[in-house]
């Protein structure tokens, strides 16, 4: 296959457009520059601004090989040879309670899922609470009960923690930060560098439920959609089933902030491959699609809290999907795309009409504070 971006053309007009496109692709591959003076909400959106901030501020200061992987969790080798996965996440969702869950569920699921898609069996969590003065203790108790229930369901224990209270107005109710440790079974190898052309992308279920559920729960849109419920859930059991059925699995990522579109872009850029998604195959519940259409939001960028993407060899894709569908949370699992050698770093989508478009990283923040 020739490079679609660079292949020559006899038409000089098209040739000029090609050269321009090539220049743009070169430009896009540069390290993101941080030109802003102040933090804006875009820096927290998980898109290009977030990447620029992470790269220019955090990675620059903390630089080390584990961090530079920029995975959902760091995989660390112990002197004994055993490997641990270590991950952290913070939660500022507003509203704190929403259809399908609360900030408590998210705080556990978020970290458990980051560990699971790193290839680890999640085991221990820490939890830190920043609480605004005036917050009802009964409400805190209820959220902590949600955390306990979520931890039990995920087979993890919350073994250490911290509490801070700030003056009224200095925080918005309650923020939670969790960190987690899991053990990576011997012999398990996952990494973007293992991804090959021809591999298939398997998605564990429908897109956009969490982001839209939280957005609508804020009530400022006056859209009634009772059926839209957050998908917050632990994915560790689905991951285990998938890895058994498709032992050749190359790479996994949970499709949280920035959605499937952002995850695929991260894969394409890290692995230096192209990704083609099939729009007709993307599972989106009709109510979510309707709400997204109304708001002008593409469900491909909307956050999920119980869905992950796995890259599996073509010949194991069918088994992978079957294994996921056998799990109650994975009944809508499906192959959504494939890995292609060209164009590297780019994600394209094939529309149901046989048209095509680029799926770029998300710019700006359509839905702030959803996790």
């Amino acid at each position, binding site marked *: 296959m020739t490079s*679609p971006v660079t292949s020559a053309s006899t038409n000089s007009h098209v040739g000029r457009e090609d050269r321009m*496109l090539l220049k743009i692709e070169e430009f896009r591959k540069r390290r993101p520059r941080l030109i802003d003076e102040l933090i804006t*909400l875009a820096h927290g959106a998980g898109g290009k601004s977030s990447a620029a901030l992470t790269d220019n501020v955090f990675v620059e200061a903390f630089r080390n090989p584990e961090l530079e992987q920029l995975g959902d969790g760091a995989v660390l080798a112990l002197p004994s040879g055993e490997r641990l996965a270590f991950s952290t996440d913070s939660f500022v969702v507003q509203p704190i309670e929403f259809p399908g869950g609360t900030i408590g569920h998210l705080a556990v699921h978020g970290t458990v899922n980051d560990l699971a898609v790193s290839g680890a069996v999640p085991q221990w969590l820490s939890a830190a609470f920043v609480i605004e003065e005036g917050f009802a203790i009964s409400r805190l108790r209820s959220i902590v009960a949600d955390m306990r229930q979520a931890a039990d369901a995920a087979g993890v224990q919350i073994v250490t923690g911290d509490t801070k209270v700030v003056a009224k107005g200095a925080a918005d109710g309650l923020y939670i930060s969790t960190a987690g440790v899991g053990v990576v079974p011997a012999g398990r190898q996952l990494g973007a560098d293992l991804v090959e052309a021809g591999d298939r992308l398997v998605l564990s279920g429908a897109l956009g439920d969490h982001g839209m559920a939280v957005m609508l729960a804020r009530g*400022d849109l006056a859209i009634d959609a009772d059926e839209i419920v957050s998908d917050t859930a632990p994915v560790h059991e689905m991951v285990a089933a998938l890895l058994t059925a498709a032992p050749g699995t190359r790479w996994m990522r949970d499709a949280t902030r920035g959605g499937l579109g952002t995850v695929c872009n991260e894969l394409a850029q890290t692995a230096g491959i192209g990704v083609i998604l099939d729009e007709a195959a993307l599972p989106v519940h009709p109510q979510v699609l309707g709400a997204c259409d109304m708001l002008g939001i593409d469900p491909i960028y909307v956050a999920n809290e119980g869905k992950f993407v796995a890259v599996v060899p073509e010949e194991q894709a069918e088994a992978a999907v079957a294994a996921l569908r056998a799990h109650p949370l994975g009944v809508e699992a499906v192959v959504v795309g494939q890995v292609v050698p060209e164009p590297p770093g780019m994600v394209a989508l094939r529309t149901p009409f046989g*048209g095509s*478009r*680029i799926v770029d990283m998300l710019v700006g923040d359509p839905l702030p504070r959803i996790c």
Partner: protein
Amino acid sequence: MKFVDEFRDPAAARALVKSITQLAGEDEFKFMEVCGGHTHTIYRHGLEHILPPGIELVHGPGCPVCVIPMGRVDDAMWLAEQPDVIFTTFGDMMRVPGSRGSLLDAKARGADVRFVYSPLDALKIAGDNPGKHVVFFAVGFETTAPSTAVTLVRAKQLGVQNFSVFCNHVTIVPPIRAILESPDLRLHGFLGPGHVSTVVGTRPYRFVPETYGKPLVVAGFEPLDILATVHMLLQQIRDGRCEVENQYGRVVREEGNVQALKLLGETMELRPHFEWRGLGFISQSALKINGAYADFDAEERFSMPGVRVADPKACQCGEVLKGVIKPWECKVFGTACTPETPIGTCMVSPEGACAAYYNFGRMHREAADMIGQTAGV
């Protein structure tokens, strides 16, 4: 995504494309879609690449965010930074660059800038914050102007004291006329605006075929609407007809929305002239709040700087808006001007021609064909 919707049916799309290809034959056609919503649909569904190569869609000036000049954005930021002001606007306007950054930057510097989905939400914020003055930054064509009009009427009925509108509503007919007067124009017809026409109806476009001899078909926003409209334009040309037709009949009536037009007449009046980004001053092309509602006119209540700011030299938004150049032909496209750091407004709104091309269409035909043909994965 399963678009079971009758307006997104792939089989119907293929049949239409086949028929369009037959009608077009070996000839070349340039049609302008006036509306930014159409531009977005065309790129989002990859329609450019499934139409025959002889049919070129030129992206017109109908993205309301894209036509707001920098001086007006500077005025908006000045308003947002006044003490005790809560400044409200549609989300798309937050990232539009003025000469000192965008409203998003003003917000990060401490201004109380909030995005709303309706001006009525802004009025509600005024009710909830009696100690503050709430300004709504009103932008848009006749599509959004009636919702501003309703809000003005409601504010007056309720006797709200702490609410005003910074009105930047524009009208659709003058820029279409300006484009038709442009000497470097080579268009064969127009995909007429859909949402605007729900308000103004189809009559105001009669001058397009009658004076300028170009067919115009009012189009809906689903992918099949766009294809059907292209088909109708070609059919007119092949039949030797030249008229205004309505493809979006399920929503648009010939007379428009009489009640909405009446409300507009009650609350707003035409400005003698208004500056459009890239197009310059166009007479009688924008709306101002009229004397009866002057208490709610931010331009009356505040002495805004009102400084006219020239567009950045490198920016070619004007030529893009007129369809003279394609987005990628602009000198700064994709390098200095990207959706993260837009120089021109066409790169800001998802309906802007440059942003749509950058986000969805940055791929040439061979690549697109290859992807389109990738057998079901």
